[in-house]
């Protein structure tokens, strides 16, 4: 592999990794704070992509559609937490897993009823549709650079919120000590609702950002779910920083693996994860 191609692939890997981080961030946040393993997280990614596709078709504006879809996802998150998740706080964790599996069935079915089963695509917004010259024979699309920047911006924002704000302080406290948060006079219920809704919104936002680059098809949620779990487990469940590092590692490794040994590349991320867990049974950045 030439040096030039090496760098091209590295950039491909980083770009894929950043998107993985965005999808995984909500999953790890919700698990870290609430201890809930949300198997329906991938469905939220799917919902985001379908919503933005639908609104772009109706309104024609990507920005407006993206904002509208994100807002709907936030509302959906609040609704799900209030109606369903909240009832299971005192129950076995596996009951929560079962609930989220039920939700996967429901969301997949609603997708088919509301939007049909044709594969869809969203056009890249006009302003970002160009590409910059890259190597002699290829160019790099502006939208993909933009998407990577958005992912970085959200990563920074998440880091800032968690480490510098009052909400972040409560989140950090909530992870370690539920009673303490309540002693501070904070309603833990509202905190959980907010965190869960943000988690759902993050998944949907990644679906929105991915929509112009990917195809919007039934089952798209499940296809990212497992990769997301791998990312989060490598990084350490509940750690945002871990998810970031894990996502970049998985992105880069799987990009190089698909080029260098395509037939093995399915297994590579699992092998990597197993190796990480053998050395660090709680992931890289476990608390």
């Amino acid at each position, binding site marked *: 592999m030439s040096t030039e191609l090496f760098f091209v692939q590295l950039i491909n890997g980083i770009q894929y990794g950043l998107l993985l981080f965005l999808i995984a961030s909500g999953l790890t946040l919700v*698990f870290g704070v609430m201890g809930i*393993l949300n*198997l329906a997280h991938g469905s939220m990614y799917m919902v985001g992509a379908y919503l933005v596709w639908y609104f772009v078709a109706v309104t024609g504006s990507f920005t407006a559609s993206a904002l509208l879809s994100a807002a709907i996802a936030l509302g959906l998150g609040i609704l799900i937490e209030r109606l*369903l998740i909240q*009832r*299971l706080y005192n*129950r*076995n964790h*596996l*009951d929560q*897993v*079962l*609930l989220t*599996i*039920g*939700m*996967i*069935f*429901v*969301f*997949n*079915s*609603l997708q*088919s*009823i509301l939007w049909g089963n044709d594969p869809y695509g969203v056009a890249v917004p006009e302003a970002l549709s160009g590409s910059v010259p890259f190597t002699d024979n290829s160019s790099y699309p502006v939208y993909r650079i933009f998407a990577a920047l958005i992912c970085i911006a959200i990563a920074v924002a998440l880091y800032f919120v968690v480490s510098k704000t009052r909400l972040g302080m409560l989140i950090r406290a909530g992870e370690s000590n539920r009673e303490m948060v309540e002693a501070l006079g904070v309603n833990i219920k509202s905190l959980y609702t907010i965190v869960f809704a943000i988690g759902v919104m993050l998944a949907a936002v990644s679906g929105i950002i991915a929509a112009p680059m990917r195809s919007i098809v039934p089952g798209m949620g499940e296809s990212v779910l*497992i990769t997301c*779990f*791998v990312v989060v*487990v490598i990084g350490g*469940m509940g750690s945002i920083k871990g998810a970031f590092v894990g996502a970049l590692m998985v992105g880069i490794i799987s990009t190089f693996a698909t080029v260098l040994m395509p*037939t093995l590349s*399915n*297994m590579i991320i*699992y*092998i990597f*994860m*197993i190796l990480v*867990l*053998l050395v660090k*049974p*709680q*992931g890289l950045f476990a608390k």
Partner: protein
Amino acid sequence: MIFEKRTERIFLAIFFVVALCIPLFLEDNSFFVGKATTVLILAVFVMSLDFLVGRVGLVTLGHALFYGLGGYLFVILTPEYEAVNFWTYAIYIMAISALIALIVGVVVLRTSGIYFIMITLAISQMAYYFFFDSLEFGGNDGLFIFMKPETSIFGLSFLNLDNPSHFYYLALLAVLVTLLAIKIILRSRFGRIVEASRLNPERTEALGYNIFAFRLISYVIGSTLAAYAGLLFALQYGYVNPQFMTWEMSGTALVMSILGGLGTIYGAILGTLTYEGLQYVFEHMSEDWMLLMGGAIILMVLLLRKGLAGYLEKLLEK
């Protein structure tokens, strides 16, 4: 009496009486005998999972690895056009599966909790891709088993596996043996230590027991039972496919086990019957059966604290 609860005794009595009679009222070739056989085989698989998840405390999302392996090992080990002895090969396959489970167990049991879930999932996905990508094992199209094995023991043959009713009774026997085996293990000293290490690992360790070894042996037992179920499933229709190993398969079994009432063992049978029954009815009701299925799962989680078995016990126990 190894069945402590009244509910358990009542349910199992009704279940086995009904199950024994089912083929008497149906034609041999009827779809329902085949369907019931599949459900029984699945129940064996789910019971083995329920033992691991509910009693040993090992939440695995890679159990289908062994379910698929049971069938693949049969195809790999046996000659294509010659009927082999079922029992001999069942023992071979279970022994090899146990060995594989031992090796896998040594690796996966280094982790716990959510990490255990993920590492088991990872290993089963790797096996899935191995068979999916391999031409010699049929790739994504899977492989056919052309000859059903014969079942004679010391020259005496009771069962003809080409006869669906006979196969049905073989599956029912598997349910009974698995149920008894798990129950006996749980009541033994070994079982009590295993349960103690789930409820209070530190104390059990302090008492001088090597928790790792107990868990490893349990993992091997559960996995071997799953491989037997998988062997039966592959033989029933003479077909293996890598999809039998997917995490969705493991996940569905987990759903059945939780619905039935985690750790109750007989609840695994109840959960399997309910899930399969609901799916059958919903599928024939509407093209959007997934919506009904998802709704039913959500409702049951919300309403039933300890699964279906827990609900029955509330009704029947004083």
